[in-house]
């Protein structure tokens, strides 16, 4: 049962208040028509799926309805940080497999 710090509400809240939105920092291609099918498919379907640190997006659905990002370990489930949209993570794992 995750306990997630909402960077907007500035409180730890129960997992039941949140919904998970998958990998964070996926930018929509600025010119989709210029992409190959493979590049477009990569954007639409392919996701990082690391065992370990994962930057992921959550929505505080039953709270402030803001989307935000979290850096969470997918093995230990430890949440290292949460941060607002537009911010960069401060905990990263260089060299970790995707």
């Amino acid at each position, binding site marked *: *049962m995750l306990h997630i710090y909402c960077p907007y509400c500035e409180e730890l809240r129960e997992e039941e208040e949140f919904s998970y939105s998958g990998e964070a920092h996926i930018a929509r291609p600025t010119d989709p*028509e210029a992409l190959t*099918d493979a590049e*477009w498919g990569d954007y639409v379907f392919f996701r990082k799926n690391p065992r370990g640190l994962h930057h992921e*997006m959550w929505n505080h659905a039953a709270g402030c309805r803001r989307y935000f990002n979290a850096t969470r370990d997918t093995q230990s489930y430890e949440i290292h940080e949460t941060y607002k949209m537009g911010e960069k993570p401060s905990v990263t794992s260089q060299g970790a497999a995707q």
Partner: protein
Amino acid sequence: MSQVNRLQQGGRVDRSKPLTFTWNGKQFQGYQGDTLASAMLANGIKVVGRSFKYSRPRGIFGHGAEEANALMQLGVGKETIPNPRATQVELFNGLEASATNGWPNSDFDLMEWVGKIGGKMMPPGFYYKTFMWPEKMWMTYEKFIRKAAGYGKASLEADPDIYDKLNRHCDVMVVGAGPAGLAAALEAGRAGKRVILADEQNEFGGSLLASKQSVNGQPAAEWAEAAAAELAAMDNVVCLPRTTVFGYYDQNFLGALERRTDHEGMTAPSGSRQRIHRIRAHQVVLATGAIERPLVFANNDLPGVMLSGSVATYVNRFGVVPGNRAVVMTTNDSGYQTALDIHAAGRTVVAIVDTRHNPEGRLLDAARAAGITVKTGHAVIEAKGGKQVTDALVAPIDAAGDSVTGKPVSMSCDLIAVAGGWSPVVHLSCHTGSRPQWNDDIAAFVPGPSIQKQHLAGAIIGEYTTAGALNMGAAMGAEAAGAEAGSNYDCGDESVCPAQPMYLVPHTKSVMRAPKQFVDFQNDVTAAGITLANNEGFESIEHVKRYTAMGFGTDQGKTGNINGMAITAKNLGKTIAETGTTIFRPAYTPVTFGALGGRDIGDLLDPARHTAMHPWHVENGALFENVGQWKRPWYYPKAGETMQDTLNRECMAVRNSVGMVDASTLGKIDIQGKDAREFLNRVYTNAFSKLAPGKCRYGLMLKEDGMVFDDGVTACINDNHFVMTTTSGGAAAVMSWLEMWSQTEWPELEVYFTSVTDHWATCSFSGPNARKVLAKLCDDVDLSADAFKFMDWREGTVAGIKARIFRISFTGELAYEVNVPANQGLYMWQKIMAAGEEFGITPYGTETMHVLRAEKGYIIVGQDTDGSLTPQDCGMDWIVGKKKEFSFLGKRSFTRPDTARTDRKHLVGLKPIDPTVVIPEGSQAVADPNQPIPMDMLGHVTSSYWSECLGHGIAMGTVKNGFNMMGETVYFPQADGRVLAAEIVSPVFYDAKGERHHD
């Protein structure tokens, strides 16, 4: 029968409050304060059940959660509960218990002979090796296997009780109220922290309640009572006795089950029977203690073989001595105290059999001083007896404990107490993924490193002395509270002589040939069985567990696992640390399903959402359809009507005069900001750049994969303000979708979204007389066809209420949707019904709505589409903006090779060749009805209805390459053998030119 084993005095039972209970239909007495187990033992009941595989008689073995044998069938009828352990059932007056196995009964069980004779043929894994021929017979074999398996019976009636849950939060959660837990809770409580203390037993104190020690000069049990009283008096401490913490989840979340009324009767007199506490703790102190390890020797499952500490607990806490002549086998000092307690109770201790060759110390001295025979360097290698122990075979063994070194002698006894050392209760600490670690010093697993904010105190990390547990508890409680420990505890001399690890007591015969030496009682797993598994190549401890079923019982191997792992390790020539342990999972002890379900059952299973007009629909006899969480009127039958009659009547009312549907459930999103248009352009396939105030436009929304996701009408309120409608079921998803793009991808667009679904109530009425009805109620809007056109909206006053009137139509008729604040929705509905009365205005439900829209060929997203259709596949290329500057969501996917195919499945109209036929929805289309199976399927019927106004069946469906097959016939083979046929046509069956809704 009187309580033959009850002492005249002592213990924590109230002899002034006798309680009557029945066991296997026979009446017995116990006392207030007894467990069912202590009362059964008091009455000399030996056989409490039969084993799983071999039907061997089994007796009470432990005194708590570790009990593997005494699984009861409690109560009868709808109150019955299968499988609770007698050791954990508090006795109450009138309790009815019976054995879960044994035929005709557990005392005299004919299956025992099957077990005796067939047992040799039933080593672990025997079922993998046989029952294979002939193949078809397995289902028959299985029937017999299933019958023999299982323990108790579930009731066949609904549960009369309810269960509820509390969400709790605290600074410090203390699990276990033995010495360590009490001391920890006292420190944290005194520091002013919010503390929760939970313990599975009815009173706090744990081992202190059965101890003859003193704490700081006070008798242990008295100290525990005082501590419990002090905690109960603290406002900041929640005391939860009879509460088992069954699971430890991530980030210090714990699940605990409180048995609120089980000690009073089978069902709760009022309120909930059990309650789940869902606890979020900042800090957790695990003070869960340790469980005594049994010793594995031949026939060690005979009734009368018991854990030494359990025997002491029965003597000291319940005033029950479960035998008259006891042999105590021990590998450590624990057994001595039990022997002394039995001796003090006035019963005979035949001998203390100590596997150690040279034990010494205060307890040994005390035993000798009491005149008890102590045989060192010996072991009970085999128990003898039929339905209970009659003798113990005692033999000298070597110092390593590997072999018998001399001739066994037989000792007559009716109780063998075994003390094999202690296994810390590490279970909870493992639930969050931490692996336990083997500690050679105490020959046990202790909790491994954890990322939880967790503190360990007492026997869980091998601190087995009372003073040690108290002081460690105090230290950990203080640490968790961020305070300094304020107490120091002294319990006198607790020195002990080192223990001997002993996992398998040697026998004169080899392990494969000796009488059965049980490791896991509940699943009849023996040392030989484990050895066989190892010999067959099952070397991983998980394989051993799975092959033999060791640890799979309802006790989850609390007593058996360590011995089994050690036997495996020895067989493989590895250390126990190398062999490792299996993973402990929730629940620590079983948790009632109903409690986990809580109150979210029945009407509370899922919220039923209602519109403002719901009371009217109920009053007027509507039947309802579940649409997402919404309850929508499905149709309004009148007396004597079939469903089809009703639909015909409702449809014809709309086609010929006027009908009204409650459209309030449609999602409605208020969109404001100067970039609202641009935003709409990006999320819809069509353009909203030119939609003028007062106008509405239908839009189609796609996911990035190009597939239709939602649809609806959006109205322009003014240049910076729009109201979007969505499907009823899709409202929340669309809202999140818009917010996601706005917040994460296009924050520069100035636009805000607010859900107004619940704010607006929508009365949608259609039919040739719709204008006349509206005209009666509204005089401030020019309703003429030229002034208020199809796809316009106006603000006006309807029945005196300010309303937004949309001239949009989902029926193909002249139609208005009157939107008013929902507080006035019911009123507006009634006003329109009254105004329409002269035209026979007819309320209709979703089913008629579906028929009417299908006659017009309008799709329902989620029924006609399934996430695999593009707008083009739906024949809606007209709504795909070709010139939009921004590559709207999903657009790029159109040009992928598979998506760009022109022979994809297309959504078409299907006109039954036989006009009387309504092709069942879900029918699959084929080109050649005579093709043998497997047939090539072209698509399926998504919507199909009887059209009363057209006088024939109509349908929509997908057909491969359908747009290029107009006029061709496709076939629909039915399960009943009929083959229905339909012509592929345009999906617009009614008023193809659209004259009626424009009128």
